[in-house]
């Protein structure tokens, strides 16, 4: 089929019957072509191995550099860094607790909303929508993931933050202000809550795409069987689709969480950049990634820079654990055999 393609051009014409016969007879005299082929095949193999090595060594180099970069802070603060609350470049006191808190609050809250939306969209795309509708809506939802975070952050500053402030934060505070979670909102809408909303937009397409693929693996006979027995559409979904794929849904949410904790730019644009632990969802905050984005270019001391590398280490560890957790869940609770 690819006769024009140079590796195969005129190739068959050059096969030498005599040498083939010689090879069959067990004699090992190679033609020039055989030798070229042997070298080229071996070279390609080594090249491919080189590619895989570059990738693997690249990851090792990242880990090594980040740890080396953090060494000053590692010596100064040790593992207790994670539990230290203070982050003040002016007094050279650094700790990860506030940022870890901000990261977890925004990501957990964002993923909680995104999980509901994403699973619903996954159900819609895999089971509800006519094929033509799904073929349009599916790619559109995935387009959300393609929007650059800096643009999402820009829209976050000028649309999402004011919207959240006036239509969600202020009314919720008025109605449920006695709950610490819904404390007084700020003046421009920069808050953990706004950051969570931005993260929802980023995570929904991931959860939607992953769950759609999982729901599509549920055999049609099982779904039809449930409906033939008189189950309504929703009872079929709850009884057959969701009950056979809980691990897949959990894995999708974990992977969405992994995406959320790593987002730096869009979050730093809308979160307000204040290192404080506050139960108030509507207060300004900061996350591991967003603090690095905000302060890395303007360090006040070597320890400041090292501490940011330490934050990077914490972030990388978190990310690694989400991947391992996702694997553990899908290995131990997934792969249900269809009876």
């Amino acid at each position: 089929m690819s006769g024009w393609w140079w590796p195969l051009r005129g190739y068959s014409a050059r096969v030498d019957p005599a040498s083939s016969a010689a090879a069959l007879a067990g004699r090992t005299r190679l033609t020039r072509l055989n030798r070229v082929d042997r070298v080229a095949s071996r070279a390609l193999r080594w090249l491919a191995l080189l590619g895989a090595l570059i990738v693997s060594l690249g990851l090792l180099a990242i880990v090594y550099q980040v740890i080396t970069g953090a060494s000053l802070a590692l010596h100064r603060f040790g593992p207790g860094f994670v539990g230290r609350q203070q982050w003040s470049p002016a007094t050279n006191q650094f700790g990860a607790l506030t940022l870890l808190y901000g990261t977890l609050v925004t990501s957990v809250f964002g993923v909680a909303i995104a999980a509901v939306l994403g699973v619903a969209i996954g159900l819609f795309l895999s089971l509800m929508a006519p094929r033509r509708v799904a073929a349009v809506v599916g790619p559109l939802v995935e387009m959300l993931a393609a929007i650059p975070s800096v643009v999402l952050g820009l829209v976050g500053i000028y649309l999402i933050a004011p919207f959240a402030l006036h239509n969600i934060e202020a009314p919720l505070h008025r109605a449920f202000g006695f709950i610490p979670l819904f404390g007084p909102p700020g003046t421009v809408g920069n808050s953990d809550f706004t950051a969570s909303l931005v993260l929802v937009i980023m995570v929904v397409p991931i959860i939607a795409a992953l769950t759609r693929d999982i729901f599509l693996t549920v055999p049609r006979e099982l779904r039809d069987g449930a409906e033939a027995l008189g189950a309504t559409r929703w009872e079929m979904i709850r009884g057959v689709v969701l009950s056979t794929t809980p691990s897949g849904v959990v894995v999708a949410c974990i992977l969405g969480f992994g995406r959320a904790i790593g987002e730096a730019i869009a979050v730093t644009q809308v979160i307000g950049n204040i290192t404080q632990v506050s139960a108030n969802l509507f207060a300004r905050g900061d996350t591991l990634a967003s603090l690095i984005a905000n302060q890395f270019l303007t360090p006040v001391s070597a320890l400041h820079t090292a501490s940011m590398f330490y934050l990077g280490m914490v972030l990388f560890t978190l990310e690694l654990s989400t991947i391992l957790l996702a694997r553990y869940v899908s290995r131990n609770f997934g792969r249900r055999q269809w009876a």
Partner: protein
Amino acid sequence: MGVSGDADPSFALTPSGNLRRRLAVSRALVAATVLAAGVAVGVLIILVYFVAQRGASRLSLGFLTKALPLVSFGAVSGGIGPAIAGTVEIVLISTVIALPVGVLAAIYLTEFATARVAKPVETVLEVLSGLPTIIAGIFVSALLVTQSAYAAGVALAIVQVPLIARTSAESLRRVPEALGEAADALGIARWRTLTGIILPTAAGGIVTATILAIARAAGETAPVLFTSSAFGTPYQLNPTQQVPNLPVEIYNLANSQDPAAIADAWGAAFLLIVLILLANVGARLWLRHSERKRGL
């Protein structure tokens, strides 16, 4: 029931009682999934509309070619020409690094590696593709110390490699094994089979992956923020120096107090979003076209 056509009072055709409740619950939840899909598409439309409304009017030949003025307060002038050129340059550098590495790693995974070796490499790719992009940024800034277009290219390549490698491996796996086996049966050397039969068959997926990776890299801010943070400079294409680029430009302009600068940010954001969405649509269409052609 229904055979004779007689109405059976114990089996009404209109749901009642418990069944009516069950159907109501079902309809409500089905409607909720439709609503969720509608919300997602609605958010996409609102986002694009909001950016277009503020940015589209900013686009002009001058805006696309001129440099930003040093002090723009109040005056609507200048443009993002240097940033466009810089983005093209760093994405080019990054793709030149990431494409061969990614495709070779994919070939290794699918064609050469045994299951025992393939697993760790796949894990590495998984970790890399989940790597927070800001870590790619601080890694390269620690590795290369000085900022330059090369540094930005390396940082973006870290983002691109797992994208290209994983999608390419996926598309290599989808090449029917019969093709390779037929080539082996004809005594064709391995490298000829790979470069002449398997890679061309998988080319559609690899090209799609590359287009998507280019679109992704063009919009990434975190990896270039510490590796090529130049902003508002005149045209600068020397790759050993920092080059201005669109994401960093938008990031900085957005924080400005100057309305003209914010208008410029919207213009740049609109350009970026249009190019990236077009690339995504294009990549999808290309994939569909090439898969149909190859009969995959």
